């Protein structure tokens, strides 16, 4: 996957570059908040959809950590998202932990634990067997949640989650304003943290593993340990998304552990561009709005459209929307110099 080396790779340590990447972090945060405000103004009656997009954006960011930065192709990322959602939901329904921040913590822990399990299992193999392991894992999680119905509600879903007001001040209202604000806040915090992590020496190590694991091993680092760590981190991020989904919709269904959700999150990531946090966000937003419009018209045409979209992206824009746009801007800048 050498083609996905993004131009926002900031490998050098010179001061101007550092300052510029910090500026990009701030710009990214500003863009997220501005888009959130525009969304709020444009769709005040559809905040549930916007909150759902925020939760899925967290899932796609987590997938980007393992697929885009470590080069692990997985079709089972929803296992981490669903584990986070169920952990938050079970904490609320069975243990009476209804404070949203504590539910969030249990979601993060649940997601991180699922990330550890999936990471250890998936890294046993490479190539096709790895892909098959990830698919088998998501199905196993799905079947398990379906069977353990006394804890998860089975195919009826886990209902009856009633979160307390956030910080004791903001109740989760019928219009979903609090949930939306909470979601955007979480997304901004996670995004800022991830920007720091992917630029850290650890993030660089993971990129190096993606490019050439043998050389990294020769340099004395263990690729396996680094990727498992990244998987735990990815599980925590996906867990935040799952917990947000559980808190905002107040129900957790089996669809949050489905193969379809895993495949769709991969489509969103590739549509936006792998190996870039901005790409993950852009892909999610475009895909979710597209889905909302088309699937309302006809769910089966929707599937054909997604298929055609995928083929088109692979053939004409293998770097995704953000990657292609960034490359275009960079070329223009070169030409202008």
């Amino acid at each position, binding site marked *: 996957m050498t083609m996905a080396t993004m131009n926002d790779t900031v490998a050098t340590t010179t001061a101007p570059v550092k300052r510029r990447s910090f500026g990009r972090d701030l710009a990214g945060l500003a863009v997220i908040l501005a888009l959130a405000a525009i969304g709020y103004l444009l769709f005040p009656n559809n905040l549930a959809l916007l909150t759902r997009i925020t939760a899925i954006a967290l899932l796609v960011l987590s997938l980007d950590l393992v697929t885009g930065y470590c080069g692990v192709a997985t079709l089972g990322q929803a296992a981490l998202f669903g584990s986070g959602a169920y952990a938050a939901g079970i904490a609320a329904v069975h243990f009476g932990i209804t404070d949203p921040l504590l539910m969030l913590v249990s979601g993060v822990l649940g997601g991180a634990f699922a990330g550890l399990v999936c990471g250890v299992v998936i890294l*046993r193999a490479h190539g096709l067997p790895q*892909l*098959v*392991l990830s698919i088998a894992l998501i199905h196993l999680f799905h079947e398990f949640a379906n069977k353990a119905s006394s804890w998860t509600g089975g195919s009826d879903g886990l209902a009856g989650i009633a979160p307390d007001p956030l910080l004791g001040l903001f109740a989760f209202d019928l219009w979903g304003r609090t949930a939306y604000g909470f979601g955007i806040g979480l997304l901004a915090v996670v995004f800022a943290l991830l920007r720091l992590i992917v630029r850290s020496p650890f993030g660089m190590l993971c990129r190096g593993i993606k490019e050439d694991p043998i050389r990294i091993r020769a340099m004395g680092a263990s690729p396996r340990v680094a990727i498992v760590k990244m998987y735990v981190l990815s599980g925590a991020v996906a867990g935040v998304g799952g917990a947000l989904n559980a808190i905002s919709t107040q129900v957790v269904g089996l669809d949050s552990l489905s193969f379809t959700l895993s495949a769709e999150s991969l489509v969103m990531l590739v549509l936006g561009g792998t190996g870039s946090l901005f790409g993950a966000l852009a892909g999610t937003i475009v895909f979710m709005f597209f889905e909302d419009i088309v699937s309302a018209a006809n769910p*089966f045409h929707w599937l054909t459209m*997604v*298929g055609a979209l995928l083929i088109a992206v692979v053939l004409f824009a293998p770097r995704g929307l953000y990657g292609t746009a960034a490359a275009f801007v960079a070329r223009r800048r070169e030409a202008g110099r």
Partner: protein
Amino acid sequence: MQTIFSIAVDALAYGMVLFVISIGLSVTMGLMRVVNLAHGAFAMIGGYIASYAARDLGLGYGLAVLIAVFGTIVIAVPIERLLYRRIYGAPELTQVLMTIGITFCIIGIANYVFGPTLKTMPLPPGLRGSVDLGFRSIATHRLFAIACGLAVAVGLWYAIEKTAFGVKLRASVDNAAMAAALGVRTEIVYAVSFAVAVGLAALGGVVGAELLPVEPYYALRYMVTFLVVVSVGGAGSIPGALLACLLLGGIDTAGRYLMPEFGEFFFYLAVIAIVCVFPRGLAGRTR
């Protein structure tokens, strides 16, 4: 005893159907190194064509099978020319995305053309009843599926081990560049084996229609099963695929008979265990 016997027969029939469908996937994956998630979609196309020919046009079973196999090849070869060509040697993620995109498109189109209902395949009178073995009777269709599987296994073994084409095929699997340098036209080897693989998938889709019912989400539902067979057996290995099919067919059928409430839980658990222990497949070679 009764239960064990019926589990054994069903497992054998199911395993053989799996084998007929996925052996083509195994050979093309070993040959072209393409992770082809759309293979199940070709089996589904075969099932649809046969069902249309037999039910709506009123043709005989044998003729319907032939039409299905050739029809699917006719549909698949342009797809190979236009789309698959571009992803040979591409990174895995690209191949997964392209083939899953093709699968989604085929599902959407099948749904639009044939509707979301289950398609049945009317069996000829000769396959409808059951055969008495003296102490037990077996559905004739199961026996037919088993016989088809064995015939395909023997036929492929002969074609790959004993014919000139098989020699070229094995050479291309081992080292495509070297084979091409020695005068093997790998393009043609690729195209022929892709066509044979798709034809076998269609045959399996028709013969197995009783066990794996044909409906639009067929391609997605069984995609995992076929991929699992290939990765458990080891890509490109016929004995490995046969062993994997019988093993997985046995586990799945036994699980359904003995613990139906657990669904496919044990199937996936077994898959994870096998792949963890044999990361290159049961008959995989070290590269």
